[in-house]
């Protein structure tokens, strides 16, 4: 079950990566940094909440609100940096997001210091239940449920709403969408913010289970990367399946043969890239 919990978090970050890649064709290395940012802001929000005398059993609310709210940095990054390079080679776009990774890592250190931050005391607030013979914190189940709900929500957004139709049209054919009167700048800004918010929310939700560290971003990005490659770049269903594969494989590998933990995942990534570079669900629209 810890594998599924991990998968739920991974899915959020990977979904953010997919939305951005699907529409803007940018592989956003910074999504890991947004995840770390969400984690730190989440910790601070929860601490402020408890300090203000809020009841511990409500701590999920400020946590999620902080995670979503801080997604607003997406607008700053998109309008301030990324919009200048849409016409450039993919390499430059990739490097620009790498620049954001570098800046963000130090910005986090500057703001929150180098010591890990955690709220672990709240992790078991909701108690535990026994599932399949293992004790599972109820909080994990809440996150898994939330992640599923978000997955459905994104699916609904993309396929059933006007905004979703515009997003898919833009992803499909940018020039045509523009010619039909779509304000590309605004769509990009919104999509990137959505992607960022998914990442920061993922970071905030993981916080009760672990501590916030400035390196957590660059570590997560390679996992999210594995997820999207296995699932197929730009595909939402791919992100979902990929996250499950990576999350569960990781927890299986940890309990069976810890040395192989990440190695297995990268080997699968390579196998997928070599045999089927579009991924398991590649080719599907965003």
């Amino acid at each position, binding site marked *: 079950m810890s594998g599924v919990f991990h998968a739920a978090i991974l899915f959020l970050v990977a979904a953010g990566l997919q939305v951005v890649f699907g529409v803007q064709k940018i592989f956003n290395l910074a999504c890991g940094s947004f995840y770390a940012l969400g984690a730190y802001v989440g910790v601070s929000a929860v601490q402020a909440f408890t300090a203000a005398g809020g009841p511990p059993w409500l701590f999920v609310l400020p946590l999620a609100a902080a995670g979503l709210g801080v997604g607003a940095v997406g607008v700053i990054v998109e309008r301030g940096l990324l919009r200048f390079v849409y016409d450039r080679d993919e390499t430059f776009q990739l490097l620009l997001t790498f620049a954001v990774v570098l800046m963000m890592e*130090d910005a986090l250190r500057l703001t929150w210091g180098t010591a890990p931050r955690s709220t672990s005391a709240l992790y078991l607030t909701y108690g535990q239940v026994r599932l399949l013979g293992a004790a599972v914190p109820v909080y994990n189940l809440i996150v898994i449920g939330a992640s599923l709900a978000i997955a459905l929500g994104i699916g609904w957004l993309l396929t059933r709403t006007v905004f979703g139709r515009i997003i898919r049209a833009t992803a499909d054919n940018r020039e045509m969408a523009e010619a039909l009167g779509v304000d590309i700048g605004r769509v990009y800004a919104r999509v990137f913010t959505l992607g960022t918010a998914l990442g920061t929310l993922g970071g905030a939700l993981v916080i009760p289970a672990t501590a916030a560290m400035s390196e957590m971003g660059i570590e997560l990005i390679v996992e999210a990367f594995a997820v999207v490659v296995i699932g197929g770049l730009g595909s939402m269903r791919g992100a979902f399946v990929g996250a499950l594969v990576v999350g569960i494989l990781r927890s299986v590998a940890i309990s069976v043969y810890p040395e192989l933990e990440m190695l297995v995942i990268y080997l699968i990534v390579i196998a997928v890239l070599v045999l089927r570079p579009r991924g398991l669900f590649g080719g599907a629209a965003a």
Partner: protein
Amino acid sequence: MLPFMAYGVVLLGLNLLFGYSGLVSFGHALFIGVGAYAGAFLTGRFGVRHLEAIVLVAGGLGALVAMPVGALCVRYVKIYFGMLTLAFGMVFYTFLLKFYRLTGGDEGMPVLRPFLLGQDLGAMPKTDYLAGPYYYYSLAVLVVAVLGMWRIVHSPFGLCLRTIRDNPVKAETLGVSVTRYRWFAFVISAAYAAAGGALLGPPTGNVDPTLAYWTHSGNIVFMTLLGGFGSFFGPLLGAFVFIYLQDFVMSLVPYWRLVFGAILAAIVIFAPGGLMGLFARGRPVEVARG
């Protein structure tokens, strides 16, 4: 300035791939790692202390590893090439990290002080050794590497690579085997990176897995871009400025990444030709096609 020599060698190789073949590797730290650990194994486990031998073996090993890896990677271009190299880099990184009995895990391995030109300089104080013989030795290696790369780039082979970069379809119709040339470029570039990696070990006396981590790959791509890729001496300039600036900024504040991220963003947005591109204003600058 010692890391400059080592990175100079690495970047010469990376630029053959990035600047001359148009392939951006986000996993070149893999080969730096191969070279650096080759040095550690040779000095520590096998008692080979001659730096000439170490650099050659490292380069050879790098090429050897690059042969299968490259064969898989060069079938793709652009983002898929970058991702595949990144994945291979991370495989090697986790290997170094997890098989700690062999590689020392996250603590890494010690690199014993190598002999230079057959001379055992073990009695020398460390700073004298590094500032004196080792300094000139790395400089000599760098010069040899520059001469070698100059020959490669200005040979028909180098010309073919540039043709492939600019128009792969046309190159293929002209009878140039695109995949094979890219593969050659990949292997040569890996050999350079590994040889450079071997030079990184002795100054610190230690190698650790972060040498193979993906951010390290990102940093060397950054150096290349900083100097200007596509021009022969651009990456060397980039390595020089990067290392000098890093020392300088770190002496002022501990947050060098913040400054460097801002610099990188500025280069990407305003000066994609890098520093060499700035100097070469007026002449048409060789910049990646949009």
